[in-house]
């Protein structure tokens, strides 16, 4: 049950950019769910996490399951939804008309078109695995534990503001440089 309050955390200092998470994600979301068969599927299974090079680091980019998710707000049919405040943001393909408004509004640019039906696909935080008390596939596949699935701390607000002030000071630094 605790799994529902967990989230995927990235420690980019540990990321090798090996893309194991990408493969695991595509495999779990393929028709067969088995690597040997998934590679032969047509259209090829799509991954919902992308490892990008950022300076000297690799960064796995995936849905952040925003607290106030713009994709949920903008979806005209209610296809993008979450079942409660802590739950991951998921797409109900049965309601998605493929208008791509969410693709336009995602601040992280992670929403993609499904090659099969031109609906939207995104990270569902491996809902089915979570319910079985397993970690999401990308987390399980990460060899260095750069990706981890951890509980969010709701109480420690001090640290939180500390982190945001750090962002602000960094922003100021970069402005001063200019």
């Amino acid at each position, binding site marked *: 049950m605790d799994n529902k309050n967990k*989230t995927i955390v*990235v420690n980019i200092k540990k990321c090798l950019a090996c893309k194991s998470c990408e493969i695991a994600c595509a495999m779990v979301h393929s028709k067969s769910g088995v690597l040997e068969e998934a590679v032969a599927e047509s259209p090829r299974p799509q991954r919902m996490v992308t490892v990008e090079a950022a300076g000297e*680091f690799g960064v796995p980019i995936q849905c952040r399951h925003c*607290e106030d998710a713009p994709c949920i707000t903008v979806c005209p049919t209610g296809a993008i939804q979450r079942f409660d405040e802590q739950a991951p943001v998921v797409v109900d*393909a049965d309601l998605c008309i493929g208008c791509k*408004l969410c693709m336009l509004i995602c*601040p992280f*640019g992670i929403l993609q078109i499904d090659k099969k039906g031109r609906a939207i696909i995104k990270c569902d935080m491996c809902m089915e695995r979570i319910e079985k008390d397993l970690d999401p596939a990308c987390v399980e596949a990460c060899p260095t534990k750069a990706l981890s699935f951890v509980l*969010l701390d709701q109480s420690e607000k001090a640290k939180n503001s500390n982190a945001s002030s750090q962002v602000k000071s960094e922003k100021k630094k970069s402005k001063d440089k200019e």
Partner: protein
Amino acid sequence: MRKIAIIGGSAAGMMAAIAAAKENPDVDVTVITMDRLPYRRPAIPALIAGAINKPEDAKVFSAEALAGYNIKIVCLSEATDIETANNVISYISDGGKQKVSYDSAIIATGSSPLIPKITGSDKKGVCTFTTFESAAEIVEVAKDTNCAVIVGASFIALEIAEALMHKGLDVYFNVRSRILRKLIEPDLSEFLIDRFEKQGLKMLTGQAISQIGGEQSVEYVVHKNKKTATNLVVMGTGVKPNVALAEKCGIELAQSGAIKVDNRMRTSVSNIYAVGDCAESPDLGTGMFVYSPVGSIGAMAGKIAGRNAAGADVKTRGFLRAQADQILGLQIYSIGHSTTTAKEVGLEAKVHDLDVGQLGRFEYKQKPFEKAKLLTDGKDKIVGAQLVAEKYGSQFAWQLYQAVLNGEDRKAFLENFISPRAKMAETLMNICEPNVVVKGIGKDKSLVLKNTKSP
């Protein structure tokens, strides 16, 4: 029990049905549709590319999605008449005449392809793509040819060109003026044409093809007096609203030819509403009624009409047109007005280049590029925005969307415009402690950072 009858089972009609059933569980909703099942229209390029092969693969609003709502769908049926005096709709189903009475009716009859007058456009091999059946014909013809000509300038025409290129066909793209004329500015169109040509799409620009030749089926097209051999011509030259039924029962049409509605999506007959590609809709910025056949607007309008039909009284201020697509590896975003659509509503729009490159960016190994435009009215209020990007374009586009939606002042917007990509890089690079997580975007549109419990 209040009875609602809806004619048309695509995005607008089905959203109206769901909204009505949600608004008032005591309504009885009947949807009369000509289709065999509701399907997602953007799936048509996937059908042509061979990623799917039957409408079932792209079905939407299936029985499971509608479970729990009091909605009855009558498939393969054509509405033939609306008796506005008696509140009865006649339709043909299974070859027999049927009738359904209503308290409120919603017309969502959609649109049909608009085929330009070109000599030979009735030949076999000239296809359209608004239905799965017509798209299946494209697949059939494409099997025996190695060259296709697409006529049109829209997103979906480009998607079909891309799908046919994936099948290994030589694709010629004929556009009379420029691509995506209603969505983007001329220099962005030129830029796209240049990029697409490099990827192998052959452009036939400057004027429409003047002739489609061949005996019974297509053998060649003529463009600027030059013959191009092909057996397949795909017409993506826009749509016209299906208004025959509305016209027949005396519902007023607007100058654009679509059904005239008010801010409640109500037609000239007080208990009949019209939504989707067959009707006009109010533009958010100006409040003027325009014909804008876009899926998302149809769905939003459907919701308003459905709720009103079920007894609510909701008005819309207007809808913001926003479209995005990914074609041949390029992401294209168009939000609000372009100079073309602004002119149609009498707005004098000024175009500004937005240099997103100067703002801090995520340090990718291969630097992606972005080209962006801001459109403002006389008071320097943002009325439109466009963006072409290689990767993660929405990291910028979402801010542009907010700016157009709220009609922000251009100067104020530029002062606050912080590249989210830079923001994300900062967050990830500078505070990447293992116990801090970026939990997306919060209510104040800034990044939310959360601590995690130490193990």
